[in-house]
């Protein structure tokens, strides 16, 4: 996380990753002068709900990425790049954020649960796609890749799916995790393929006339029944003789290869925002922490050239989420440390191994069908993917709040429906998943919505004694703050940062605070921005934290819109820098 704010003195200590003192010194020196000027005038982000990045473009060239490179570079070489540290220290926040501190809809993200309430049942039905038609499925090819077996099938309607299977000693684990996580990511707003759990008899699988097998070194040959039998021999049938699989509908459009979590795709003219500066990728760290999606990586993403001649960006492969990540040093490391984690390794090394990481001592798997997906050792602030991801590293408090807002929007009922979507054969597995998801969701809410003032949907209201600012307090609504002691501290300045009134503290649980003094008339010197807005008042509102301090503020900007003489709310932003 990155952060540089005068408000930091009232917040928790951030978990800033260890930079070498020298690098830090240079970064601070390089940014010091700029921090002063950054606070000089209030600005408001664009009032757009849609980022129009779906303009027709020529077909981009397919690209390839190297996972080995991503691991090597992100784990070992990137920290050596001093320029990167300076850029990171100068990070002013995500770029694709609108006036209401939301991510506008785009080819990357569509606001669903973040903007409106979603019915619990809808979470299961809103994913576009359909299950494979029953009847014989023609095997197009067997893929000898990944660590779970998979085949491409064509159902009777001619639709192609990738059919993935669970490992025989961990039945249901990967398929359930993939189904649940797909639904979570979709409801959150990401583009995902249609993934569903299917059951079939061995007789349902037939060889297609053109079916082929491609081995590890990509040699292709016609597939035989022996290949099919060999595949089935690697799977564990259910007691009724059927097999369980995860059918993933092939994406429609021309696949262009993965997108990477940094930079842009140069031949996609719509892709102008560096990916590490996209909030939906930075804030995804919090969502990923919820479902333990440690396998977030370039190769699990896909760009698709779709109807309309633009590039749509998908997240793929959630088969290693929750407790399904059997990675290097796994499974207990997963989510706690990177594969190569310099800090953790250093601590163990200098203590000659006497220091035991908490997960080394307390990590345990209760159900093999679930794997290592737990709540007691989950720390929302410290969760890590398998190797550093630049977008995640650039996540700041604003992004984290955005992610937490989404995670905590999943109601208990929704979580229950999600757990049921895993279609576990034993009810206790469903209950376990539900319990862990709820506990982790609440851990995220308790941490991030306490750390950052969780107020939304501001509006001005008139009352007898003057005016007040009304809002929704997500922490109160979602049970992460105590109504009895809820307080807000308000500081008001004019557009140039000059104090307008003394700081006020209001104790209330009704989602409203009295407004301090503010300029009402249009100021002659206020130059409207390109949307005709003239900010004139900046309110910094902080909620109280459980530890007695004040959370990072939400900045609410008031001003005039167009020629209007009425003071309005122009926008807000959480945890401004």
């Amino acid at each position, binding site marked *: 996380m990155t952060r540089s704010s005068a408000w930091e003195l009232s917040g928790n200590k951030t978990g800033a990753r260890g930079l070498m003192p020298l690098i830090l010194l240079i970064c601070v020196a*390089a940014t010091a002068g700029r921090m002063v000027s950054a606070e000089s005038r209030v600005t408001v982000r664009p009032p757009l*709900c849609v980022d129009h990045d779906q303009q027709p473009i020529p077909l981009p060239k397919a690209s390839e990425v190297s996972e080995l490179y991503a691991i090597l570079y992100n784990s070992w070489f990137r920290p050596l790049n001093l320029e990167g540290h300076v850029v990171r220290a100068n990070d002013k926040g995500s770029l694709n954020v609108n006036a209401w501190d939301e991510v506008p809809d785009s080819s990357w993200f569509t606001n669903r649960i973040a903007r409106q309430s979603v019915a619990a049942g809808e979470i299961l039905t809103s994913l576009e796609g359909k299950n494979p038609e029953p009847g014989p499925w023609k095997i197009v090819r067997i893929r000898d890749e990944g660590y779970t077996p998979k085949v491409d099938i064509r159902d009777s309607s001619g639709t192609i799916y990738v059919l993935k299977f669970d490992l025989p000693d961990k039945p249901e684990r990967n398929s359930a995790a993939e189904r649940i996580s797909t639904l979570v990511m979709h409801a959150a707003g990401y583009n995902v393929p249609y993934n569903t759990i299917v059951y079939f008899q061995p007789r349902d699988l037939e060889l297609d006339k053109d079916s082929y097998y491609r081995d590890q070194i990509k040699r292709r040959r016609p597939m035989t029944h022996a290949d099919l039998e060999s595949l089935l021999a690697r799977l564990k049938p259910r007691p009724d003789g059927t097999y369980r699989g995860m059918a993933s509908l092939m994406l429609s459009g021309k696949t262009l290869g993965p997108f990477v979590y940094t930079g842009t795709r140069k031949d996609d003219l719509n892709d102008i925002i560096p990916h590490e500066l996209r909030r939906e990728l930075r804030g995804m760290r919090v969502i990923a922490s919820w479902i333990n999606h440690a396998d977030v990586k370039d190769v699990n993403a896909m760009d698709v050239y779709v109807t309309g001649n633009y590039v749509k960006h998908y997240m793929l492969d959630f088969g290693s989420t929750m407790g399904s990540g059997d990675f290097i040093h796994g499974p207990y490391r997963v989510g706690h440390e990177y594969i190569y984690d310099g800090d953790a390794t250093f601590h*163990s090394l200098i203590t000659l191994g006497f220091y035991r990481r908490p997960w080394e001592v307390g990590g345990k798997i209760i159900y093999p069908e679930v794997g290592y997906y737990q709540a007691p050792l989950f720390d929302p602030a410290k969760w890590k993917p398998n190797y550093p991801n630049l977008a995640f590293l650039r996540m700041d408090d604003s992004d984290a709040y955005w992610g937490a807002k989404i995670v905590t929007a999943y109601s208990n009922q929704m979580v229950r429906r999600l757990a049921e979507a895993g279609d576990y054969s034993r009810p206790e597995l469903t209950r376990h998943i539900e319990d862990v998801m709820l506990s982790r969701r609440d851990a995220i809410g308790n941490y991030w919505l306490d750390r950052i003032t969780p107020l939304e949907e501001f509006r001005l209201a008139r009352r007898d004694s003057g005016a007040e600012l009304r809002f929704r307090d997500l922490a109160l609504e979602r049970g992460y703050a105590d109504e009895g002691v809820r307080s807000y501290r308000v500081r008001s300045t004019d557009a140039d940062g000059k104090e307008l009134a003394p700081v006020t503290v209001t104790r209330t649980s009704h989602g409203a605070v009295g407004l301090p003094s503010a300029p009402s008339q249009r100021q002659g010197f206020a130059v409207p921005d390109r949307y005709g807005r003239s900010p004139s008042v900046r309110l910094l509102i902080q909620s109280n934290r459980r530890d007695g301090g004040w959370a990072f503020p939400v900045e609410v900007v008031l001003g005039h819109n167009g020629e209007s003489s009425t003071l309005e709310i122009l926008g807000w932003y959480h945890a401004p820098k």
Partner: protein
Amino acid sequence: MCRIFLAALLHALTALTVLPHAAAQEQEKEASDQGERIVTEAEVHKAEHPAASVPLRFVFYPFHLVNSGMESGLVSFEKHNMRERLNYWTEYLRQRGAAVSIGGLGEGTGIGLGGSYTMKTGGKSDLSFLARASFTRGYEEFDVRWTNPVGRTQFVLEGSYQWRPQENFYGFGMESLLSDHTKFALRQTWTGARGEVALHRRLRLGTEYRLAWLYSTSSPNTAYASSGAVFPGLPGFGENVHLQTLGFYADADGLKGEYETGGLLHAGASLQDGLGESTLQYFSYEGRAEGRLPIAAERSVLVLQGSLEFTRPRGESGAIPFYLYPHVGGESTLRGFKLDRFYGKNIFLVTLEYRYKIHPDFQALLFFDEGQVFSRTSDLSWLNWQRNYGFGFKVMSSRSTIFRMDFGWSSEGYTYHLSWGDRLPRVLGGPIRYGTYRR
């Protein structure tokens, strides 16, 4: 100014038009959605290239260049499934008895390549051939071995030829000088038979008989002085030495996993007897012990190793050729010293090593080595050790070490050792120089 603002406030608030929030927001949103982007390219550029980073962009240009090259290379590597192909062909060759090895013939022998081929010769017996050569230092080796296991016993016939053109010699004893660094070449050919019986799963006894033909001469590397020139009258230099060896050994191997409690013991004794007109006759005694104590389960372990070699001339033995003396220095002994830095009749060596698993295939280690060479037991001084400490890294595969690096500091400064592959010590030492660099 502030007072004016305050006074105007009440007026403003009474004039305030309070719209339902959601509707107001929607109005604003819809009115503003005119096909615009959320950010302009200028804003992106400013965010992506803050002024403070501009000078560094030039400084780090080479870094980006190397990085870009590495990315292109690895993308191509993965695109063409090179890793899978390598594994496939390695396994393909292995199943047919063939293997390719990268590395030289031991520590300090340079970069080389080699290959081996093993063929079944009936029952459980097999015949293997190994050939290696280093390109950079000119080392050569060719080995033949026939192995025939029968029940708990094993019978081995072996033959080997080695050309070792750049061996180091600094003189004898602890007082030898670094500045006296010389090089010599050694040609050694030997053949022998070995019989071994496993009394227990972890206990083996064996005996070995060898015939060896040895010859030392000046090194072709003229950048260094010849050992014969700097140390006139060096026993064995420029001479053919023919000898036979008969020895016995016992091994108790209690090592389990790399990071598990365990230990091993080795003891051996052999008699070297010169052939022809040679009066050379001496005993060699050797012992090794190792103990491992895990610190963190499956992650780190403390390893304590000790080894000793004694040379005892028998009767009126002729002078022992200098290259047959035990020697220390280098990756498998004293890592803060140059390879083969100290020669002496007897050596005593202790090593304490902390091994830490960074990754199943990647190990870091901290070490402390202490050793001494001495002529007689009475010369062994508890105050006269050569000591060094340092750290290292080891890249391993599931079968063996792929690459290792050690950095050591000693009274003679620091040195580093790089080696590819690994090679177990011979079951019985004796008069053969053998590139061992496995711990």
